[in-house]
């Protein structure tokens, strides 16, 4: 925390030097609680309460509390290192794969504690799909890429139909229907990413997590994926991490803005949630000065 004057919603706080010193070991978020949680979300698919993730002994992101709405698109924005990807990886427990990562606080999925003792991370991931920053097709045929998920989950029904349906939902069917047996590495970057989306859809997930899905793509491919997201939100809830504010403004219904803070000793970078709410309001009438500066392009 710096000793800057911080404007947070209606509250204006003067942070004295003394207070700053007091905060040294217990940094307190200086944002008003209601801004962050967004109580207007009525049917949340995810609810986090004071969610913190640390790698080894250094915290990466602290005290995130928000409610993510069902069948909407929620965007996480913020400068790099703010922990937005780290948080999204809690929603399908991908952080489990990093031995040093420790998750504290609560993540509820439809009310269920995702980090509860009786939760099997494998079963979590079959309901909550994920698309990554760089397209990561398997080095196999287009068909086998789609069929992998349904096969490992033991889904019944005709595999050909499952594959076709998934490719149609990802608006990829017409592009590839004649070359299903071709290696996926022969596709363009944008097609590969839509293949990865189709692959995730093939298992009929309830939620689709997208971690900067367009950062490796050209503007035209990006546009097609954004169109696709609009179609998909009829059937799945989408959480997208993006460093591109315009993208968040174009596609999302709600936006959460994260920042990077230095810790009190100025050594570690810690991500925090600053503001969360309907996308329109975040971009037109942000309550926090830092959000305003970010969305107006003053930093980030």
């Amino acid at each position, binding site marked *: 925390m710096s000793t800057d004057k911080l404007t947070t919603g209606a509250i204006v706080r003067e942070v004295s030097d003394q207070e700053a010193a007091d905060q040294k070991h217990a940094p307190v978020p200086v944002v008003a609680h209601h801004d962050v949680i967004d109580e207007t979300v009525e049917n949340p698919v995810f609810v986090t309460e004071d969610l913190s993730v640390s790698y080894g002994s250094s915290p990466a992101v602290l005290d995130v509390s928000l409610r993510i709405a069902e069948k909407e698109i929620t965007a996480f924005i913020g400068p790099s290192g703010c922990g937005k990807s780290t948080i999204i990886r809690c929603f399908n427990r991908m952080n489990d794969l990093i031995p040093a990562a420790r998750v504290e606080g609560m993540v509820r999925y439809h009310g269920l504690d995702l980090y509860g003792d009786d*939760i099997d991370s494998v079963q979590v991931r079959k309901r909550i799909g994920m698309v990554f920053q760089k397209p990561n097709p398997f080095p196999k045929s287009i068909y086998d890429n789609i069929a992998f998920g349904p096969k490992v989950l033991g889904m019944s029904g005709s595999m050909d139909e499952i594959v076709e349906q998934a490719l149609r939902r990802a608006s990829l069917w017409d592009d590839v229907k004649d070359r299903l047996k071709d290696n996926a590495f022969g596709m363009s970057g944008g097609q590969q990413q839509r293949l990865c989306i189709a692959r995730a859809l093939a298992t009929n997930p309830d939620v689709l997590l997208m971690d900067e899905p367009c950062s490796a793509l050209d503007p035209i491919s990006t546009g097609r994926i954004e169109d696709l997201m609009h179609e998909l939100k009829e059937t799945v809830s989408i959480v997208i991490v993006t460093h591109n504010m315009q993208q968040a403004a174009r596609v999302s219904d709600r936006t959460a803005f994260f920042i990077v803070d230095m810790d009190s000793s100025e050594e570690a970078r810690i991500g925090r949630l600053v503001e969360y709410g309907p996308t329109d309001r975040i971009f037109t009438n942000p309550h926090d000065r830092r959000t305003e500066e970010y969305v107006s392009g003053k930093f980030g």
Partner: protein
Amino acid sequence: MATDATTSGAGGPNAESVFGPPRRRIGEKLIAAALFCAAATSVIITIGIVVSLTGETLTFFADKAVSVSGFLTGGQWTPLFSDPEFGIRPLVQGTLIITGIALLVAIPLGIGTAAFLSEYASPRVRKTVKPTLELLAGVPTVVFGYFALTFFTPTVLNSILGLDVSVFNGLAGGLIVGVLIVPTIASVAEDAMSAVPQSLREGAYGLGASRRQVSVRVVVPAALSGITAGIVLGASRAVGETMVVLIAAGQVPTTSLDPRNPMETMTAFIGATGKGDVPTGSTGYKAIFAVGFALFVITLVLNTISIRFVRRYRQVYE
């Protein structure tokens, strides 16, 4: 599909209502256990080596013909005589002389090769030289033994250089073992030189240093721990090399320091004694284990030192 659930509420939904019935996945655990057992086999192999060597070595020293002090300091090694002597010094000395000759050859050749490949060679030259060195490393050592005995000693040492060496001699063994370990030293040293950051070189070029000065004064000192690791690993290979010395250096344990004469190394003794059908339980049989134990300890120490040095340069540059 999704279960309707409120956010918190007492109790809340249970895992089964959201995700379906839990799976046990016993297979997953069994597989993980099986893989662990496979990896643990390597530890069992090491234990097998240590136990088999120490067991017989202890019975070797329990033999009344053998004493620990005689073993460590005695100058006579005649285990198969009717009145055997068990002084390991001739074998250790033979090993040291041959390893010393090998290093004299391999250190300049290995470091020179590494510096050439890392600092000077064009990609095309590298693409031919490196696989050829790998080929050299892949030639079975029995072939080098043949070469040392039938060509190197009579043609190179005697006819061309006129050194007047015996048919079996330590010099040919040492020189050929030296060539044999060049790929080992060169590859470890080259890895270390390539790991030296470009910025260090550029810094020196910026001060007007020539390429030679950069190689000799910047790259080599910066890669020194890696180069040392390569040399130590090469020494360990030379100590453990069997076929070349067994074939070309002779099987005469001697305390003579003249490498033109035949000499026997520790490995050659093990090979020569193991080849004949030594009866189990004889002192000669046990001597194989005692010498093997000494060999294992020496190479283990050398390997450990080498790993240390490699780790040191990795810590600095990677």
